[in-house]
């Protein structure tokens, strides 16, 4: 930690440079509103630069500027005013209410700038500071709770992926992630995780590619939610678009430097970790060799007599009650390498539980940006370094971003602009996920011995450098049976990855005349990545090394002709005619050693114990060319209507069906131009209808064979699991949307409400079929999913006084999805079959994402029925719907309190509903790890005692003949009614609701007086926090947001990671 602070300081000092300007003078003045009240917090900027200040609480400002400068005064909801400096040293300003928000220009599809008031669809802007003030390694996580209808779910591991879905899942099996467009360049948001990782069989979460975006470079974001908003992007934007505009230098003069430095520390939130029982140790029950049945017998100390030992192979804690007077030969007594060899130790709970493995993590983000320009050109050059130390041992991530943007006007009519970004990200020791020995949480939540002290495991590993596990086969066979020493796992079996990424564009803009202009743009997003995974010799399972090399590239060529003309007084016609050619390339190769490693610790394919099997290769190029047109009409600046049409041709569809057309129409009316009421500042009604066609991924048309490793020199080919289809047609989404936005009472209250309905038809779906057909799935155009919902955002300004300002922003959204139909004869489509006997499904007449599994059996009154033995009856099949992954609603409340130079921001993020199946409690409740597996029963006896001794539990329910259950059953061994052996899956489905204090920050901005004495133009310091407090949740021992990976498989936890509280501080300086 210390080294990090000092490096920041060095960095700061390096940039403390004085920059002086000629012909400067200080201008002061007061800014008031129309009623003469002083306005605090008005932005005062020297036009064309980033130099500026804000008015204080009396509306006063003071700024240094040249005589030739122009000052720009702006405040939300008021008209922006400009005043040339000239010889004035005092400029008092009156800002008027901005009745129609005429100046609010937003960036819409394809980078087209539009008056927000003319839009007939919902968009929601997010300022760049919203994602950079409380920084995270993945800026998407900062959007949670800030945009109505945008759901972000981080999967919880270091650098892990975040699921980002707008207005619900519309594609049954396809991609449902929002599209990111940065400065007009669509970028990849691929999640390079394996199918196994996504469905919980193990592997690492490598994060999603859009997380590469550096939050410090973001100026603003605009979220396009519906199909009408995104129609011009075509097929790929069917899931909504997040348009990101990055910071640019200003034309004008002078060079500005800004420096941001943040250091965050993170600690695991105990509320999201298991609580271990401290009363009983290793075992599954009472059936081992010792007299009492709880211990194994080996001659450990070599005296020829059998000794009581821990049942080493048993990864559960249904063993003997702890007794400090009882000496047992435990794992540390059987390894000759240890000082404790052949020594018995008291039978007590491990002093350090697995919860003590968590370290304090840290993230340091330092960025420097240089910007400026001349009257013809502008530039900005930014560098950001992010370093993360994870919370598990040996976990690190770093990312360096260099971004250049610049523009130049060759003539008044011809300008050129470019954005170039280079990003290098590295990961080491990402956390293993799912049901896999590389995920320590698999053991810590499901399979563990509570007598083990995790620090003793740590010391044993560091002393010997060997896999000294608590879980060996036997004293005579010390190889691990299931679980490795968790420190061995972290330090020996770690992965590494690197991604080099280049994103950029070049655009040329030519204004032909007052009406026409033309834009040409080339943009690219390319990256190379390598992922290397290791398992050292000596680990449980087969040792090995595997590497995955992937190269992905997307190139876009755009030409857009724009026109804008007042055809007649009060009648404006504008529009675009454009074409886009998109080429996507993907080449990857995954190779692994075969049969283990020969030499330990040497990770190369050449170290394979057996001859290598052929690596798997993927090589795909797809192209889509699109032509589109948009025409908009505006009448009296009050009535707006626009229509779009797009034609796409895609290489992923069969020849005869590869071209498809789709239209949209949208309209808006500025009601305030018709209604005149003092209390109403602005109101707009909007409506739209849109269709969007969609293609699919490559290689779903022609059937191919899978070639695998030869057998005895003979070639091996298999038919694929899925049957391709030469008759595929494009998908089609149809949607409509209605919306109303308004501002009242001097803009103290504002709202924006939308209702939408989208039906996605003809989905290109791998429909499961009877395997007796010879295939598992068939690609068909089948299935319709409907998503409909309401989004509300509310802006309140309850207090606006001279020294105190309170702003509140509330977002709320409710999406109802329903699978309207699947293919004929198919009444369920399994999205994933998961360990534990549950599955995630799309089933007709159900919301998308039904969780199926075994339920209890109920009587008519809804009571659970128990069998004669007193255990719950379970449904005969695993087909019962026992939950759904979709939340009922999501929302966020953010508050900003501003008192003089201090401002306090906090965000409360809420999700109501949605379900999670926990494999962790499914197994963990059957292994006796948790605190709830001990304690007294209804008789006051230990619940773990045998029923014969007064122990056990009576399950709440009724017998088959309807009488209340009175039969007590054993709960002191793995066959407890609460774990997988006897419980129904339903018993492990938890409500995913939460209320979280997601973000909080306290910022002090240095006042003008202090700034004048410092070499800065602006300076602020903040204390920030993320995920500070889970105010409410219903799932025990876990974070309701934890999951495996971004994607369609949600609502499932297996070896889940805890939530991490992050607290830190940041400094922002402008020179």
């Amino acid at each position, binding site marked *: 930690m210390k080294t990090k602070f000092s490096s920041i300081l060095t960095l700061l000092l390096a940039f403390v440079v004085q920059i002086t300007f000629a012909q400067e003078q200080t201008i002061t003045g007061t800014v008031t509103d129309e009623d003469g009240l002083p306005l605090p917090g008005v932005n005062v900027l020297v036009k064309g630069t980033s130099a500026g200040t804000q008015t204080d609480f009396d509306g006063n400002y003071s700024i240094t500027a040249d005589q030739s400068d122009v000052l720009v005064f702006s405040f939300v909801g008021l008209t922006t005013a400009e005043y040339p400096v000239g010889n004035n040293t005092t400029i008092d300003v009156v800002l008027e209410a901005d009745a129609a928000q005429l100046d609010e220009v937003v960036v819409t599809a394809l980078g087209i700038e539009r008056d927000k008031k003319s839009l007939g669809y919902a968009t929601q802007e997010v300022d760049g500071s919203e994602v950079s003030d409380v920084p995270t390694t993945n800026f998407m996580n900062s959007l949670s709770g800030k945009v109505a209808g945008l759901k972000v779910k981080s999967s919880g591991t270091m650098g892990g992926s975040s699921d980002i879905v707008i207005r619900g899942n519309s594609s049954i099996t396809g991609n449902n992630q929002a599209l990111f467009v940065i400065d007009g360049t669509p970028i990849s948001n691929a999640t390079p995780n394996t199918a196994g990782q996504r469905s919980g069989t193990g592997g690492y979460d490598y994060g999603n590619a859009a997380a590469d975006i550096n939050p410090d470079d973001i100026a603003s974001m605009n979220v396009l939610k519906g199909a009408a908003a995104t129609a011009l992007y075509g097929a790929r934007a069917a899931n909504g678009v997040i348009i990101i505009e990055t910071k640019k230098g200003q034309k004008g003069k002078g060079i500005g430097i800004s420096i941001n430095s943040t250091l965050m520390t993170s600690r695991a939130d105990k509320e999201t970790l298991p609580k271990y029982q401290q009363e009983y140790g290793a075992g599954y029950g009472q059936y081992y*060799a010792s007299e009492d049945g709880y211990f*194994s017998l080996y001659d450990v100390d070599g005296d020829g007599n059998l000794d009581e030992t821990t049942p080493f*192979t*048993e990864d559960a804690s249904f063993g003997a009650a702890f007794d400090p007077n009882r000496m047992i030969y435990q794992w540390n007594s059987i390894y000759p390498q240890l000082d404790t060899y052949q020594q018995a130790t008291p039978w007590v709970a491990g002093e350090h539980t697995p919860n003590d493995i968590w370290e304090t993590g840290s993230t340091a983000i330092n960025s420097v940006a240089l910007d400026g320009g001349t009257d013809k050109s502008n530039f900005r050059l930014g560098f950001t370094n992010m370093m993360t130390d994870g919370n598990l041992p040996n976990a690190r991530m770093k990312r360096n971003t260099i971004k250049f943007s610049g523009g130049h006007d060759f003539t008044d009519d011809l300008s050129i602009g470019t954005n170039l970004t280079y990003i290098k990200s590295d990961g080491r020791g990402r956390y293993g996920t799912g049901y896999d020995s590389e995920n320590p949480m698999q053991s810590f939540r499901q399979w563990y011995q509570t007598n083990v002290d995790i620090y003793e495991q740590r010391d044993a590993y560091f002393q010997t450098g060997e896999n000294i596990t608590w879980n060996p*086969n*036997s004293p005579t066979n010390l190889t*691990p049976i*299931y679980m490795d020493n968790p420190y061995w796992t972290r330090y020996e079996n770690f992965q590494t990855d690197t991604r080099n990424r280049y994103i950029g564009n070049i655009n040329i803009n030519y204004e032909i005349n007052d009406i*026409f202009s033309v834009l040409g743009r080339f943009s690219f997003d390319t990256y190379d990545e390598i992922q290397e995974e290791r398992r050292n010799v000596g680990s449980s399972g087969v040792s090995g090394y595997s590497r995955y090399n992937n190269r992905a590239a997307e190139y876009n060529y755009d*030409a857009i*002709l724009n026109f804008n003309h007042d055809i007649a007084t009060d009648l404006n016609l504008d529009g675009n005619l454009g*074409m886009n050619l998109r080429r996507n390339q993907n080449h990857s190769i995954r190779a692994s050693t*075969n*049969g283990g490693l020969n030499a330990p610790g040497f990770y190369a394919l050449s170290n394979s*114990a*057996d*001859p290598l099997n052929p690596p798997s290769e993927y090589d*795909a190029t797809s*192209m889509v060319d699109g*032509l589109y047109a948009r025409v908009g009409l505006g009448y009296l600046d009050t009535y707006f209507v626009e229509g779009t049409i797009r034609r796409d*041709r895609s*290489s*992923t569809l069969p*020849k005869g069906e*590869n071209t498809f057309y789709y239209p949209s129409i949208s309209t808006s009316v500025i009601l305030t131009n018709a209604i005149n009421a003092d209390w109403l500042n602005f109101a707009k009604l909007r409506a739209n209808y849109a269709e969007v066609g969609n293609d699919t991924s490559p*290689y779903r048309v*022609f*059937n*191919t*064979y*899978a*070639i695998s*490793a030869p*057998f*005895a020199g*003979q*070639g*091996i*080919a*298999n*038919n694929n*699991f899925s*049957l391709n*289809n030469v008759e595929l047609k494009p998908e089609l989404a149809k949607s409509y949307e209605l919306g109303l936005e308004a501002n009242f009472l001097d803009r103290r209250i504002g709202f924006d409400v939308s209702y939408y309905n989208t039906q996605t038809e003809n989905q290109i779906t791998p429909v499961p*079929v*009877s*395997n*007796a*057909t*010879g*295939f598992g799935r068939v690609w*068909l155009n089948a299935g319709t999913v409907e998503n409909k919902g309401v989004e509300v955002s509310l802006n309140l300004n309850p207090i606006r006084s001279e020294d105190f300002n309170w702003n509140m922003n509330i977002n709320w959204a409710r999406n109802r999805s329903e699978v309207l139909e699947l293919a004929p*004869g*198919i*009444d*369920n489509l*399994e999205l994933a*079959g998961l360990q534990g006997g549950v599955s995630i499904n799309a089933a007709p007449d159900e919301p998308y994402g039904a969780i199926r599994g075994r339920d209890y059996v109920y009587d008519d009154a809804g009571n659970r029925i128990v069998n004669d033995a007193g255990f719950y009856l379970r449904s005969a099949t*695993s*087909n019962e719907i026992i939950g759904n992954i979709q939340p009922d609603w999501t929302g966020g409340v953010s508050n900003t309190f501003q008192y003089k130079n201090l401002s306090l921001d906090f965000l409360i993020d809420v999700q109501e509903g949605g379900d999670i199946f926990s494999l962790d409690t499914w197994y963990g409740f059957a292994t006796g790890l948790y605190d709830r597996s001990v304690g007294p029963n209804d008789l006051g006896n230990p619940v773990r005692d045998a029923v014969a001794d007064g122990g056990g539990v009576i399950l709440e329910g009724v017998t088959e003949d309807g009488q209340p259950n009175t039969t007590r059953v054993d709960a002191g061994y793995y066959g407890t009614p609460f774990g997988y052996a006897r419980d129904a899956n339903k018993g492990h489905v938890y409500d995913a609701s939460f209320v979280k204090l997601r973000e909080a920050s306290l910022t002090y901005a240095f006042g003008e007086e202090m700034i004048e004495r410092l070499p800065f133009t602006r300076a602020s310091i903040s204390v920030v926090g993320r995920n500070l407090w889970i105010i409410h949740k219903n799932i025990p021992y876990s974070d309701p947001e934890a999951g495996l990976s971004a994607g369609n498989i949600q609502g499932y936890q297996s070896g889940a990671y805890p939530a991490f509280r992050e607290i830190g501080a940041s400094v922002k300086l402008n020179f």
Partner: protein
Amino acid sequence: MKKLLVTFIALSTLWSCQTDEQYEDLNRDPKNPTEVAADFLFTSASVNLADQLASPNVNLNITRFIAQYLTATTYLDEPNYDLNNRNIPQNHWSILYRNVLFNLQDAKERVQANEMLDEAQRSARIGQIEVLEVYAWQVLVDSFGDIPYTEALNGKDNSLPAYDDAATIYNDLLSRLESAHTNLGAGQGFAGSDVIYNGDMAKWQKFANSLQVRLAARTDNWSEVEEAVGRGVFESNADNATMDYQSSPPNTNPLWVDLVQSGRSDYVVANTVVDIMNDLDDPRRMVYFDDNIEPYTGGTYGGSNSFQSYTHIGPDFRDPTHTGILMDYAELNFHLSYAAMEGAGLDNDAEGYYEEAITASMEYWLGEDVDASGYLSQSEVAYDGSMEQLGTQFWIAMFDNPVEGWSVWRKFDAPELNLPEESGNPVPLRYTYPVNEQNLNEDNYDAAASAIGGDDQQTPLFWDN
């Protein structure tokens, strides 16, 4: 202005001037072929079939448990006959239909369309394919009862295949074996890609006929047994249909994967087989079992067993190259003994076949030099003409062909198997249908379930009486 518009459109068109054909070509996968030789599919199907028969994996094939040769140490669902927890019927069904039968059907079509082969070569190859197809169908019928047969394997042309009556399928399989015998004699079939007999067509014919004996004896169809024997069946262990596994993954015996490569300790030998063989003082124990403890002690079937405390499976079975068995000479002779006992007209008598069977098994496991006479003369082993004795000896011999071992027990109701310790569930008489058949092929599933008398583990197969 018009000029500009025209230029723009012209440019745009130029930009996207690639033809639909060029677009479609991008969609042809350069890394996975659309065409392969029939040989690739034939080899693949052969290995897939042998793998599925040999695998002890709790997700794929639990017949080593069901027949009570092995039992589990800690995780007891499967030896207690919980078939659904791990979707075992679904995996078994899917491997046989997709990875074996569909590949074979595809290989057959490719052979038929192959102009490079002469008629005799085509026939011989089709014969080889047919034998394996019959084998896979027979395993499916013996596992489930009625199954989709005539309407199966049609891809999306029939995604709702109806189920056929099991007995009718058996009859069809018998006639297919008869014509396979003829085809196999026509010429040279697959040779290098034949990983079972390396192109020895005479052995393929014996295999076809021996398989016919299996099916016919199972259904007490003596005339078919007689015909098959008349055409020529296995004459020694040298004729066995086996799979020579390789030393490195993924081509090892699947036993090695779960017993050795996994590093786990999930299996011990079940007390059922150990107790019976201990009583008989059976010499094959030295191969079947490990001597990790003295004396041989099997784990309690279906109960929790400490790995250290019970007998492990023999070291031979933990060798990656351990031979997989599709059908052996011992099995043939047990079928023939049964047929002779029940009145089939054969050259040898029931006792002769019985002794030949046991001798073959002893020779297979202990070497050609073994003298089985001592064992054969033991009082419990010496032929007594009882179905119980025949069943017990047959079952012991099928230790490494557990799919057949399960059928032997069902056919002869011998030996007496244990009830699993944990649940006490009776031994399954069939697999229940895959869960996804209930969802994906519901009407046909319902019809089949009612036709066989209920989709239940305890519904007997048509030949199990």
